[in-house]
Every structure is written in C-alpha cells, then in structure tokens.
C-alpha cells in the first residue's frame, strides 16, 4: 500500500504549522512500509489535538476518553491479538490524565505501540503546561511558572522495563517514520515520544529551538544496552537525542496468557451447552 492510501479525505482541524501534520505523514509512511491492510489496524486515541489523528487516517478507530487511551487499547489487544493496536495521543492524555495506565501497561507488556505527541503544552484547552513542560514555564494557568519538575517519559518507561523506548522529532519525517515502523514491528510494549513544536501555544520550544538541539543517536549505539539507553533518556535538555534508545523483546502478555495464546478470545463461539451444564454441576 502507498502512504496516501491511509489518509482520510476529510478537513483537518489542526493549526497551520503544527507538528501533528508531520507525525501523521510519518505514521502513514510507517504503515505503508509495513504493508498493513487498514482494516487490520486499530488506532486508539484519547482527547486532545493529537488524538484527532484518528479521524484523519483511514484505519479502524476507537476515539475514547481523555487519558484512557492505553486502557482501551489494552482491553482490545487482550481479546483481539490478531489486530495491530496503536495507542496515540498527546502528552497531557498519556502522561497526565492517563499516567497510571502507562505505568501498568508497561508492566503488562502487551504488543501495543504507544505514540505520544509531546509538545509540552495543552493545545486544545489553550496553552496550559503539560507534564513535560520545563520547570519555570509560564502560562495563563501557571503565572508563577511550572513549579514541578518535568516528567521524563522515556526514563520512566525504561525504569519500568519497557521493551522498546524511542524518541523522535516531528521535523524529521523520514527518521520518525522509521522509528514508528520499528516500534510497530516490535513484539511487546513500545513507547515512542515524538517531540513537536506547538506554533500556537509554545513560544519557547519552537521548531528552531528543537532544530538546534536534536541529535540522532549514533550508529554505534547498542539498543540492547540498558545503561546507555537510560543515559540517553536522562540527557541534558541542551542536547536532545532522537532514535531508538532501547529495543529488547521479551515474551508478551498475550504469549504468556493461557487463554489469549489459544487465539482471539473475542472471536470464540458461545460456550457449549454441555460445558455449561458441567459448570453448574459444581452447585449440585
């Protein structure tokens, strides 16, 4: 399939110059590179500007609640391991409102790909700080500047044992497409934090700001080296590494689960009358 075949023919409501356009372009390139039929892919999204991507692509979609993106994706994957499940949303949705689901689904290690659009602000609600906003960042809602330290999603994911941890920058569409393809291909939980500017609200981390700081992870980086991956994740903000920090496959939740291993639970027949009668004999 060609990348453009995954694009929905609808009006797009993102702001001009938004990094979401490039992330969308990278994702359709990744889907095309993997030659995934659109009906085998489910994009689960939450609420926010990033989450609207589900309407701008031609794949199955579950546009759920703010923050609950990964939870819905996890439930779906547990009963439909035959589908390619991608959870995609913004930093507020995945790291703020939905932080608990991120933590516990890393532990589960389902074969799902989480794509986080990280622009460090809330776009849809007009510019408040997100969990990844730097300390001191002022907004109309944070007049004294953000007092909390920013969340480091990549270090968090590594610390929890995520098997695939990567960072990308929307300004590099081809590299982002390659990272996303690798993440989708990865057997197990994959997190890709995609940095992108927000031309409407984020006046600090602009496209130029990122351009100066983005450094691709070198060829010499060994993505099975946990300590080096953690060092990349903890990099100083003056140098922002992009690339696959860590990629090690371990048995997935589906592979370890005695029920799911037998095939998609959702597609199994109703229980046989004889089996039910034998169940009820417990009470005789």
């Amino acid at each position, binding site marked *: 399939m060609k990348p453009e075949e995954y694009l929905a023919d*609808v009006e797009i409501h993102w702001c001009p110059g938004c990094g979401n356009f490039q992330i969308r372009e990278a994702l359709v390139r990744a889907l095309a590179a993997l030659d995934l*039929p*659109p*009906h*085998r892919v*489910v994009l*689960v999204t939450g*609420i926010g500007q990033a989450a*609207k991507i*589900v*309407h701008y692509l*031609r*794949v*199955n*979609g*579950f*546009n*759920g*609640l703010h*923050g*609950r993106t990964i*939870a*819905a*994706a*996890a*439930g*779906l*994957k*547990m*009963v*439909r391991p*035959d*589908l390619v499940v991608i959870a995609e949303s913004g930093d507020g949705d995945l790291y703020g409102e939905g932080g*608990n*689901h991120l*933590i*516990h689904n890393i532990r589960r290690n389902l074969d799902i790909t989480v794509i986080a659009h990280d622009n460090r602000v809330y776009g849809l609600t007009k510019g408040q700080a997100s969990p990844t906003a730097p300390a001191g960042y002022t907004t109309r809602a944070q007049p004294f500047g953000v007092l909390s330290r920013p969340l480091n999603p990549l270090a968090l994911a590594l610390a929890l044992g995520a098997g695939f941890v990567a960072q990308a920058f929307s300004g590099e569409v081809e590299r982002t497409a390659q990272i996303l393809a690798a993440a989708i291909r990865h057997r197990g939980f994959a997190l890709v934090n995609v940095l992108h500017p927000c031309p409407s609200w984020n006046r600090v981390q602009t496209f130029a700001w990122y351009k100066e700081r983005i450094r691709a992870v070198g060829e010499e980086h060994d993505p099975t080296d946990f300590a080096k991956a953690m060092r990349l994740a903890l990099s100083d903000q003056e140098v922002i590494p992009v690339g696959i920090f860590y990629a090690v496959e371990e048995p997935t939740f589906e592979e370890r*689960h*005695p*029920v*799911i291993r*037998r095939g*998609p*639970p*959702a*597609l*199994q027949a*109703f*229980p046989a*009358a004889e*089996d*039910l*009668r034998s*169940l*009820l004999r417990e*009470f*005789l």
Partner: protein
Amino acid sequence: MELLIRLAGAAGQGIQSLGEILARAFFRSGLYLHAELSYHSRIRGGENAFTLRVSDKPVFATRRDVDLLVVLTAEMWKAYQKKLREGAWVVAEESLGIEGPRVLSLPAQKLAREKLKLPIAMGVILLGAAAKLLGLPEEKVAQAIQEVFGEKAESNLQALSLGYEHGSPPVWDLPGPQFGPGERMLLTGGQAVGAGAIAAGCKFLAAYPMTPGTPVMEFLAQRSERFGIVVEQAEDEIAAINMALGAAYGGARAMVTTSGGGFALMVEGLSLAGMIETPVVIHLGQRPGPATGLPTRTSQENLLFALYAGHGEFPRFLCAPRDQESAFYCTIRAFELAEKYQVPSILLTDQYLVDSYAVIPPLDPQRIPLRSHVLSPEELGKLPTYERFALTPSGVSPRALPGLSPHLVLVDSDEHDSYGRITEDLEIRKAMVEKRLKKEEGLREEVEGPVVYPEGHPRGKTVVLGWGSTFGALREAVEEVNSRGGDFVLVHFQDLWPQKWGEIADLLGPAQRLITVENNAWGQLGKLLAQETGLIPHQHIARYDGRPFVPEELVEALTHEA
C-alpha cells in the same frame, strides 16, 4: 419445620468455612436453607457471624434470632446472647464460662491444642458437637468437610470426631430429605452472577478488587482457562471500564465488577459506553456509603446513582436480582440486552445477596437463548459501505467488529456522524441524540414488570414496595402479616430501568396506601416512582445500619403500619 443456627467468632477463626460445611451438610441431607454471612472489614478479630436457616420448605431470607448459637469468643457472646429464640441452645468454648440449662460447654481450645496440635481446629470441634446436637449424622458433615477442604480435610475430620465424642445426644429431630441428590443447587448470589456471566458468553472481565464485587471476579478467574475468558485485575476502576469497552469494541462480551466507590470512578466510562453504543455489563454490588462507608455490609443506596450516573443522556438497562436464582438469569439477560441494544447494563446486587447461600431449583443454562448481535464476515462482505452509527427506525445500528472485513469500524466519544466521524453539525447532533434515545423504546418492551404477591390487583389495599434482594424477607413478612388478618400486597421490582411506568401507575394508583421498604434512608424507589408516576409513597420503612431486613422485624413494622 424451621431451625436457625448461628456460628459466631472472630475473623481468622474460619467461621465462613464452618458455615459452609454446616450448610453443605444440611444440603446433602435434602433440606432447604438460606445462609447469611455478616462480618467486619478486617482479617483478624472483630465479628464474623454465619446465620443458617434450615427448613423443609424453600427459604430466601435470614432471621435475627436463632435456636442454636455456636460461639467461639466472649465478644460474640456479648453481641448475640440476646438474639436467641425461646428454648435456644448454646454450644460454646468452655473457657468463655457460659452457663445455663441448655448450654453445651466444650474444652475445644484445649482439645485442639493438646490432641490435634492445631489451635484453629477449635471451630470444627465445636461444629461437631453442634452437628450432633442438631441430629446430623457425622458422615454427612464429614462429606461436607471434604467438599470444602479437599486435601486439607484430614485434620478437620479428626477434629469433627472429637466434637461428636464430646457432644450431647440430639435434641432436634430433623425432617427427612425434601429433595434428592441433583435435584437442587446450593450457591451464593456472587456465584450466581459469575455463572450467569459465563453462561452469557462473557469473554472479558476487568476489575479492581472491592467488596462485594470481588467474588464475581474470582469466580470467573478460577474458570477462565476452561471457558476462554480473559480476567484481568486492572490498575484502577477507570482502567477496568475502559479496558472492558476496548474489549467490547473488539467483539468480546465484556464485564466489570465493583461496588459504589469503584462505580463512581467508572462513571465517565459508562457515559462513553452510551456514546459509542458499545455493550458492557457492570456488576455493582452495593454496600453502605458515602465514601468508604461500611465496606463489608449491605445496602440499597445506589439505585438512583446507578440510574443517573453518567453525564449526558443515554439509555441503559438496570436490573436488581431478587435472589440467587434470578441473579443467574438476570446476568444473562443483562448481557443479551446490552448486546442487542448496544447499551450498558447495570446489575445491581448487594453484599447480602452476593455473600448469601440459598438452595434453588437447578439452573438452566439454555433458558435464555444467546444470539449474536454483530454482523458476520459474510454479512459484512455484502455491504458496499459500512456506517457504524447508521440511522435506523429502532435506533440500533448494525454492529461490525474491526478486522473481519475490509470495512473500517470507527467509534468516537465526540458527537459523530453515521460513520463515527467527529462532527459539530448540529442537525446530525440532533439526529444522533434521537437515535440513541430511541433504543430505549425497544428495550422497554423487553423488561419485566414488578412481581405482585399475592397475585391480583391491589385496589384499595396497602401495597408494600421493594426491589432487589429484599424480596425473600418481604414476601415472608407479607405472608405472615396476611395470615394474621392483614391485607397487604407486595409489589417488588427486579427490572428497574427502563420500565413501563404507565402500567405501574395503573397498578398502584388505586391502592389505598403505598409503603416503600428499602435498605436506604431516602426511599429511592419511592422517589423514582414519584418522578415517573406522580404517586408519592405514604411511608418509608428504612434500614441503613448495614444489615439486611429480616422477616420478624418487617412483620413488626408492617403490623404497626396496619
């Protein structure tokens, strides 16, 4: 014939297992019973009481006073010594120093320590003495011990024999078997809901442990491999309902189980189910609130909450099973109706129903036929295009599952068009609201009206109104009051929403007096009735101390009313 037995001790003394053993021994003797567990929210100490009501006729309610009290601690003696019927017997641990003409004091603690080197066996020793007094043959109790303890039975069988050895000859003459082996079932409400879910083809359950929702989760988990069910302990209740909706979107019949606090966390997800028209079954086992309330006690405080939970307007099926038997069938109906109308179903039980045992006729797993309410790949293949939220006369859109055909399936928590695409077109918005609400009309045709007992129109009479697990106690109380010349009619609801309120107004309007009896302070059914029919109950008999209604107290209250 009726016999009330209470086993009372501290948490950690195995009261629940002792109770189950005694219940099984009576069940194996062909006698009907109802057994209720009352306990403090702790793992050691406190109160643990198992009240067993044995009869030669089916019974569906507990009682306050007993004929035999088996007591293990001084604290429990203090709590229950006044709740004895005339001529009651007490079987007690000797060191409690309880004296009286009908007190059988046993050095159970000493025997357990010295003869068995197993202090915990004290309970089984007392149980053995009690069983002998009750006239139960030792082999029946031994069989029950084996059923409950399995491989751990050996030391308990020795303890049982010690109890029989030190016990007194029978003072009761038990009736012969009222039913033969295989003719009745013994189960709790929680087991009935779990078995119903399996019979309904449930393939996914997510839950965060919370009393009294947990027994349903554990029932399914222990049978998950056998029936191909994914049972997952979620990180929180918000995850549970959203996981269930993800699973339901994928085509699994999905369920969550919780109590009031957990349900409160699920409410946004409930609204999502309404918006994306995705079926899900919510088992809500009630306990007293607000907030954490009384975690291990019973209540009916969540009727209005369950009915109105969720922002926005959308249909739902709300059903409160009246007993263990109907809990099984209601659960299957909850799944079927959720699937057929693409709505959330809420199954409203409570701690009393979930934890209580009853003897019921054998459950028939095929009484409520299961049907697939999704498009098959063949049907999908014939469609030129697919619209997940197509406008139809019934409001129900043909439901496709993702990945089974080239058609794409899109659902959206935003207002959406017939394809599921986000829209702010206000004409479409209007049509979608009407479509969603239209489904309630079909659903309303499928609900059951209230049970009227005794049958007939309650014109000019005093009507007692109730719902859910109070049925057994209310039916008995009405029977007894009427047998003494009263003229009460019980109108008891199981399906609570939707309901044919016009018919209910016709039924209740001509009554002389309306009295609600509910395990809550507000009289929530009364409020609902007033809202839907304009009929305002004259009186509310409330109980909100965390304990279930018992017939003798209801008889007193109703006699006072009459």
